């Protein structure tokens, strides 16, 4: 009986978290998706797909830090929009002028406490930064990462391993130089 009540409680928490994420970040998700896809309808599709992934995530994680939630929402929206854009490229011809680079994420880090780390991260390909962030900051399992990125489990695992290796090598090389 206790398990039953606990399951109801969990679901109630999930419900409020999912609804909160949607109402709070809906415009932000749309803004990010639209900046990548340049199309209202495609952006709406991306927001919908993002919410599907967020619902999955909310069922297994009980994150309460608003900054972390916002960070994940931005990451997932961006990845979903990029994946959908890739799909659109395959599906139809898109004017190359309509496509912009990925949104800038690395402005003004020189004055940060973590400027060394951030400058190393900035040297890594975006795929590596993204998977490291999902794994290290959001503590997602490889299976969850694979779902968010739209990759197979083995590809996600391999990419994560390479990202950690690339970051580790650069970080240790920089530390060796400064010593």
């Amino acid at each position, binding site marked *: 009986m206790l398990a039953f009540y606990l399951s109801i409680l969990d679901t109630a928490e999930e*419900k409020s978290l999912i609804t909160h994420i949607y109402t709070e970040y809906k415009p*932000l998700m749309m803004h990010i998706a639209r900046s990548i896809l340049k199309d209202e309808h495609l952006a*709406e599709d991306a927001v*919908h797909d993002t919410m599907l992934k967020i619902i999955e995530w909310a069922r297994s994680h009980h994150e309460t830090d608003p900054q972390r939630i916002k960070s994940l929402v931005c990451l997932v929206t961006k990845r979903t929009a990029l994946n959908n854009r890739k799909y659109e490229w395959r599906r139809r011809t898109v004017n190359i002028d309509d496509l912009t680079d990925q949104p800038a994420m690395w402005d*003004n880090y020189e004055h940060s406490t973590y400027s060394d780390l*951030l400058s190393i991260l900035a040297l890594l390909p975006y795929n590596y930064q993204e998977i490291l962030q999902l794994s290290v900051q959001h503590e997602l399992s490889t299976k969850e990462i694979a779902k968010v990125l739209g990759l197979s489990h083995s590809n996600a695992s391999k990419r994560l391993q390479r990202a950690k290796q690339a*970051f580790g090598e650069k*970080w240790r090389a920089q530390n060796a130089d400064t010593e």
Partner: protein
Amino acid sequence: MLTQNEILLLKQAFDEKDRIYFSSLPSRDELLDISFSPKFERRMQRLLLRAQKVYYPMINTLAKRVACFILSVVALLSITTMSVEALREPFFQFVVKTYETFADLFFPTNDETAPFIPCSPGYIPPGYKQISHDQGITYVRITYRNSEGKEITYSQMHNTGGTTSTIDIQEAYFEKLMLTNDTEAIYMEKKGTRLIYFKNENNIFKIMGQLPKEELVAMANSLIK
């Protein structure tokens, strides 16, 4: 691989990176003018409602929804069949009928390597004449007919590796008979037709026709060596 210390530092760096990134994003007020199509709003409402269900993980993809639908239909049909007497009775009658109507006769083999030697009955009831003779590598089938048009069918099959014959026993009378040389036989009567089945050496014999039981037994005995 990264050390625990590196992972901790990296986590803090990502938090810092997020703060920088968020400051580059438009504020909530600046995003107020973003509008959504009514179709999208309806779609999202449906999604949020579905997500609130306890069984959401079972219906979160189209394939799962289709599987659930098929299972529900099968379950519904099963429940309906079992709960409505008008449907349940014919269902059970069908099952019972299927198992009650037919019987399998199994004839084990004594010697699989024994050659097939075709033979025909030494006694034929008076008035009957052979009208057809069909013979293969492992069987013989002969038909006899009298002036009244009544027929006797005689079959001999080579029994290699054990043979099973399925017979319709619904509303039939049957008994076990002893032929000459203690040969066991199955005798059956149904709607005026009489039939005898028996095994001798490595052959299975079947004689069938609208003739008296005694004549049928005499025909069978004429085949036993």
